[in-house]
């Protein structure tokens, strides 16, 4: 294949994943957290596609399409929750939602 070989894609996907993880752990706005989760899912997708190309099997792409569908469903539910929170005038700050405190 032309261009960079697989290891470049691996590193790129790892960086994307780490960035998404940092976003999940360090932001307080639930919307941003959802966006960071999307980044993580996309990094996995990238890796799937890359390895599918490496092995010449399109199964990886099938997997990636399924991941996309699931991500879309998860965003629907998540955003529905956030809208419900907004309607109840609950403050959009995950640090304020502490009833799980032990």
């Amino acid at each position, binding site marked *: *294949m*032309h*261009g*960079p*070989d*697989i*290891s*470049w894609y*691996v*590193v*790129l996907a*790892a*960086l*994307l*994943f780490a*960035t*998404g*993880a*940092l976003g999940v*752990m*360090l*932001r*307080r*706005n639930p*919307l*941003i957290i959802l*966006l*960071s989760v999307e*980044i993580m899912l*996309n990094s996995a*997708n*990238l890796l799937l596609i890359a390895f*599918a*190309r*490496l*092995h*010449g099997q*399109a*199964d990886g*792409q*099938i*997997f*990636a*399409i*399924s991941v*996309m*569908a699931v991500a*879309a*469903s998860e*965003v*629907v*539910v998540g*955003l*529905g929750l*956030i*809208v*419900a929170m907004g*309607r*109840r005038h609950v403050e959009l700050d995950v*640090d304020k939602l502490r009833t799980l405190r032990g």
Partner: protein
Amino acid sequence: MANFLVWVVWCVAAFACLASALAVVSFSNPFYSALSLIGNLASLAVLFLLLSGEFVAAGQVLVYGGAVMVMFLFVIAYLGDRTDESPWSGGPSWQIVGAVLAGGAILAEVCVVVGLKAAGFLSSPHHVTRSFGSPEAIGRLFLTDHLIAFEVTSIVLLVAAVGGVVLGSHARRIEGDART
């Protein structure tokens, strides 16, 4: 020459990908974060194209960029422009340090793991035909080898749709009660 072009496109796309990802987690205005994610998705689509995943690239742009991100932008617009003054603060004192360490550890591990385990495979890419990644190939695979995945995914989407409707109607009913 073709190789060089590919390299250039790859570098630009990769850079854009990383930069937009960082922008997503850094902006305090959620609107800007969402827009940055759209950029991330676009660059990823370019990378998919480089990897002979035409159908997936198209699907990425259409589904992710066209539907999911539009939904995001709608919600952000609906909820108002809540700009965090200090997006990184809050939480216990060890949160930032711990997060950086954990993220760095996962990063290192992924690289190392994949490097160690896939060492043999990584150096010899397969030769693919032109129909690799075409809609016809994807469709054939979906409807023969991975039929169950296809059906289950559709059920997941159905569930999500129902969930969305329920979440939305619930809010409306509360509003109705509150008004009376």
